[in-house]
């Protein structure tokens, strides 16, 4: 049946939560495009057959055309929803996605993300360098007490001071400088 392969792509995205990004399914995308090529060619042939006032093929042409449109919708929805998820992940994790996530992107998506990063950076530079992605909620304090979850090594603060981030060590760090490390799982916030 037409459109079954294309629906597999959509199913791929619905099997995980909306925040997760499954591996780019290039093989299925290729198969969908192939199905579309065949549909298109057969329609071309039947359209040519119908030219001599024989309208009996019109139904066939319409049906195949509906299948073409459906495949197109599934393909575009697959790509658009993936881009939206990648964008959301960018806001969560910063400009460098964790390896596990980055491996799920296809080449064009990597390219898109680079462009998106560039636009975002340009926009934020226009706001006196304000990092819009840092706080998702109104912040409560300037400093955070954090526990180190892994041996990270030396970490240099903006004022030049160096902190040794060793596993299980506890630090009081400026909020803006440790938020990204918390998201990356290097540090853990100790709530009061």
């Amino acid at each position: 049946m037409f459109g079954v392969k294309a629906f597999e792509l959509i199913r791929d995205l619905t099997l995980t939560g909306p925040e997760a990004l499954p591996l780019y399914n290039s093989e299925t995308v290729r198969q969908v495009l192939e199905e579309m090529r065949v549909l298109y060619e057969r329609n071309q042939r039947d359209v040519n057959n119908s030219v001599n006032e024989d309208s009996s093929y019109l139904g066939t042409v319409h049906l195949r055309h509906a299948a073409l449109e459906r495949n197109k919708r599934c393909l575009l929805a697959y790509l658009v929803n993936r881009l939206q998820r990648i964008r959301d992940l960018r806001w969560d994790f910063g400009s460098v996605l964790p390896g596990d996530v980055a491996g799920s992107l296809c080449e064009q998506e990597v390219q898109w993300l680079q462009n998106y990063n560039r636009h975002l950076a340009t926009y934020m530079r226009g706001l006196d360098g304000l990092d819009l992605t840092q706080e998702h909620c109104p912040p409560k304090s300037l400093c955070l007490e954090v526990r180190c979850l892994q041996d990270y090594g030396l970490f240099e603060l903006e004022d030049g001071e160096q902190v040794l981030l060793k596993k299980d060590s506890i630090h009081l760090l400026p909020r803006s400088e440790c938020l990204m490390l918390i998201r990356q799982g290097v540090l853990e916030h100790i709530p009061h």
Partner: protein
Amino acid sequence: MDTCEVEFLAERELISITPNFDLGVLHLISGDFGPFKAGLPAEVPLWLAINLRQRRKCRIMPPIWLNVKTLEEIKERETQEKLFTKMPSEHFMEVAQLLLTAASEDIPQAGEIKVVLKDIWDSRQAKTRASCSLLLQDGGKHARVDNLTLMEINSVRPLLPHSMDMIRRLQMESSMEAQISQTQGSSFASPSQ
């Protein structure tokens, strides 16, 4: 709107403090505050009051309604009335919550206050749930939310508005697919995020 944003809005409420330091006028985005003189009461935004209190720079004077007697009266009225009664502050729960966490020593009978507040909150939440339920079952298209505070409205989001949107869509005549097949071939509106 998220719970932390509602709390953020509540932190702009003004409150009286007694500072233990001297300082000139503070020019903040929300206005000018001060000058501060040790021992003399001054009015500041709640977030500033809590910040100063945490650094032991001031004592907080609780709002006039934040005492057991007043709250007991409010509770009494709330449990008797069928509808929501008016609360002493648009942000009563957030203000109380913030003060009881950061400055409970400045508030007499803080423990009892917590209990009464919880009772008021619970009784209002019960009303909220019951009326949401009723509204959706009757397929109501609008609701009066007199005397509901922002935090309470926040607590029924997104369930109530999203369910009402769903009912509205089910009432509509034509489906999305019908619209799509009519516009097929032309460009489509970009997805709403």
